[in-house]
């Protein structure tokens, strides 16, 4: 039953996104241009060879590419649930979704599914572009390890996604959350520079975020070909985050739904 719902949610997301044609293709173009930008940036800093990169093997472009691509994808994971829910609230479609036979959490999170799939597609495209046009060095990559770590990180991010959806159900706007996601992601998670480059006082803060671990582990797997066994410590940490955040997200969403049902505010925006 939910199987058809899942497919329909993805299809609806696609139809909706594709109906904004310029935006739809602009998305891909933008993602490709970012890769060019990384290459220019890497050339500029290339000679300097920052010491912090030694851990990963020192190729600045590959370092930036993996950071940027991963951050872009997880940024979708962070924000899309809330963003789509805002749209649904404005369109008045939340109540129609919630009176269907589809369980409420799926009906509320489902609208973001297409964006996640597309995000994955774009990430693959960016990596391919990086390798073919700009010689990113992924020759040693352990792809199964990277995939497993990516899935664990995505589960942790989904926990956050559930919480952000809950936030929107109660407060109707996700702006404070997106701001938080941007700052934590781009400041602390080691997207453009390794966590080691942060002031010592801020580093513990960085390690409190699942994405710092995810990024470091992904870089080690993709740039140095470390196996999942070697990266087990990261995998456990990410699993821990997922185990903590997912139930928290589910509880948060349930509480928010109850709150909105009491106030009759499911249709409000």
């Amino acid at each position: 039953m939910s199987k058809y719902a899942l497919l329909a949610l993805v299809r609806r997301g696609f139809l909706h996104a594709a109906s904004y044609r310029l935006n739809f293709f602009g998305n891909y173009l933008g993602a490709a241009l970012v890769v060019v930008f990384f290459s220019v940036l890497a050339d500029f800093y290339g000679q300097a060879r920052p010491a912090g990169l030694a851990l990963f093997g020192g190729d600045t472009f590959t370092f930036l590419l993996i950071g940027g691509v991963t951050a872009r994808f997880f940024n979708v994971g962070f924000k899309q649930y809330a963003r789509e829910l805002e749209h649904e609230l404005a369109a008045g479609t939340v109540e129609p979704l919630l009176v269907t036979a589809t369980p409420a959490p799926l009906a509320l999170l489902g609208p973001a599914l297409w964006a996640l799939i597309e995000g994955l597609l774009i990430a693959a495209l960016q990596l391919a572009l990086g390798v073919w046009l700009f010689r990113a060095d992924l020759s040693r990559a352990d792809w199964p390890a990277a995939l497993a770590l990516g899935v664990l990180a995505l589960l942790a991010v989904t926990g956050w996604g559930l919480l952000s959806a809950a936030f929107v159900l109660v407060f109707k706007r996700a702006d404070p959350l997106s701001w938080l996601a941007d700052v934590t992601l781009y400041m602390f998670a080691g997207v453009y520079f390794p966590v080691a480059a942060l002031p010592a006082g801020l580093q513990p803060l960085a390690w409190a975020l699942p994405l710092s671990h995810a990024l470091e582990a992904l870089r080690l797997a993709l740039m140095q070909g470390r196996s999942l066994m070697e990266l087990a410590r990261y995998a456990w940490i990410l699993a821990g985050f997922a185990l903590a955040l997912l139930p928290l997200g589910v509880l948060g969403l349930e509480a928010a739904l109850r709150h909105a049902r009491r106030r009759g505010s499911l249709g409000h925006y």
Partner: protein
Amino acid sequence: MLTPALEAVDLAHAYPGPRGAVEALRAVTLTVPRGEFFGLFGPNGAGKTTFIRVLATLVIPTSGHARVLGLDVVRDAARVRAQIGLVFSNENALYGRLTGRQNLEFFAALQGLAPGAARRRSAELLDFLGLTSAADRPAQAYSTGMRQKLNVARALLHDPAIIFLDEPTKGLDALTAETLRHLLRRELAERRGKTVLLTTHDLGEMEQLCDRVAVLEAGRLRAVGAPADLVREASRSVIYRLEVAGSGPGLADRLAQLPGVRAVTLAADGAATVLDLTLARAPEADLWRLLADLGVRVLRFGPKEDGLVTVLKELSQAGHE
């Protein structure tokens, strides 16, 4: 006894607000048997939409209970949803950039229909509601009435046993509204035995469609009964308006002599004659016989001040005494 379609027991709901709670429903107790066409009537803000939203699991009531086919709307919400279809009073609750067909197929899948079945069912309903020629245009390009029809189609996708309609004919032209009423009454209620709960501000519609009506006022249930009974109870004398073709000299005098007729006034004369009759009771056979004997063609006949308006007035006056 068969479990009733809908049941409310001491149902109360207060919306929290900045200046204290708004009591939208106060201790409403009501039973709707299966297969009944039931109407909710009352002024703006009476609590009709709230009542529907509670039964449709969208609002958790502050106290009391509500059951749909014996299932509690709070504890068994998921199973209740499988049994109900809801037509929202806000006809915008659709995906505007998707076509009518895509909207229906999407919601059909969310109701658990397999892709093939979803396609068939959507096409069937589009046809049923006369939307086939517009099916592949974006819903945001639909007129209000077309959107409202799509809204109705969506509620019927999973063939629910119980259908809630919140002001379904709001904003529809007379012909479209009549088509929809026919569809609701003949197809859904009479042919398929669905239970229908409908709200409207159109009194004629209420009397035409509903087996029984509940009158709500300020969250309280003020009366329940067949529309005609409510009219009879409330009206020791009711004014009826009679409109006949042509001019009818002497008609007023002849009518005034009938038993039960208290007064006749000529409201308009010309191509058609319009008469207001004050009757002590509902019109009887001798009125119709007289009209037939005189060979007049009746264009319209009905309560002038609508029956339910009278009910409502009387009830609200009683409430303030």
